[in-house]
């Protein structure tokens, strides 16, 4: 293949505009079985919600020991009235998956004669079947995006007027940066933030050659590529 065509090929994985998103991520084997490349599935209609109007965030949590916990309550369905923490948000289908709620049971990891482990797996809920909860009185409220006096955009409950804080961002790999212990191959924060760059018009290679007194008078032969 020509070098220029190779260089211009997009590296990003693209999905067709009518791809049907499910609970598995699109690059997993389960999703590839359900949506092989040529297959057209029945269209599912999704209410378009703008990015600014999206109310529910991952980690809107249920931590019983804290008094100002963020929770989400289910309005309709099997677990109506229950409150829980948002484990995953799938924007393409307006889905919200809560931890341990709206579950059905299935066997997982079956092989040969072994029927597998019986686990509870959560089904996704549409955004309109779920509301946020006022942290102070633990009742479901409607939410609006409003601006504080400083100009910050916050979620405010319509009924009581209290601000719902954003949930603390937790990394998926469970690392808490403040509690991290540096290993032998980790650069310390002071060394990382030290500014040692002096701008100059030389490339790195030319600067290194100057520093190490390397003389190079030969020049490469001219060659052409397409």
């Amino acid at each position: 293949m020509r070098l220029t065509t190779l260089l211009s090929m997009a590296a990003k994985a693209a999905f067709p505009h009518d791809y049907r998103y499910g609970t598995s991520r699109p690059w997993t084997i389960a999703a590839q079985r359900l949506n092989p490349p040529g297959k057209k599935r029945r269209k599912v209609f999704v209410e378009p919600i703008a990015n600014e109007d999206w109310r529910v965030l991952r980690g809107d949590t249920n931590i019983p020991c804290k008094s100002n916990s963020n929770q989400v309550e289910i309005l309709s369905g099997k677990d109506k009235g229950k409150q829980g923490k948002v484990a995953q948000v799938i924007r393409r289908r307006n889905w919200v998956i809560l931890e341990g709620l709206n579950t059905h049971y299935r066997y997982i990891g079956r092989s040969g004669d072994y029927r597998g482990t019986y686990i509870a797996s959560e089904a996704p809920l549409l955004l309109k079947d779920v509301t946020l909860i006022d942290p102070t009185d633990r009742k479901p409220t409607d939410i609006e995006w409003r601006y504080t006096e400083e100009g910050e955009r916050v979620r405010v409950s319509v009924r009581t007027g209290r601000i719902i804080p954003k949930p603390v961002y937790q990394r998926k790999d469970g690392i808490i940066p403040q509690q991290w212990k540096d290993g032998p191959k980790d650069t310390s924060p002071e060394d990382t933030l030290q500014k040692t760059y002096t701008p100059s018009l030389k490339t790195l290679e030319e600067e290194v050659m100057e520093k190490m007194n390397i003389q190079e008078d030969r020049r490469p032969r001219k060659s052409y590529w397409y």
Partner: protein
Amino acid sequence: MGVLSALTRGLVRGADRMAEWTSKRGPRTFYKSRGARPTGVLTSSRKFIPVQAMIPEFVVPSLEGFNLKPYVSYKTPAGTEQPMTPEMLFNEVVAPQIERDIEEGVFNEENLEKYGLEKTQEGKLFKLHPKNFAR
């Protein structure tokens, strides 16, 4: 999966024609390199003469007092420096010199080389465009 039709699961009708043809496939007599550059010359009597200039040599300065390590700690906060753009580089390196020359009255439009601006990339070892060094 190339030209195979929509509802096939897996490769049903023949080999995957779009797979890369590498040295790992084909019969025992099939030879193909995987991109390693030669380090010498093969003569007509099938003797290989290594050429020292073709063998890469790493020139590493002494790392005394060098504190940077391969990884960055998770505790580091996000940096506040803006990424360097050509405009910023010009403003910091070249613009002060030009302003100083204009004030002294020595600025000459034909003699821009003394500020580091080059007319052509010919004759340079590390050309900026077309870029002829790997980084």
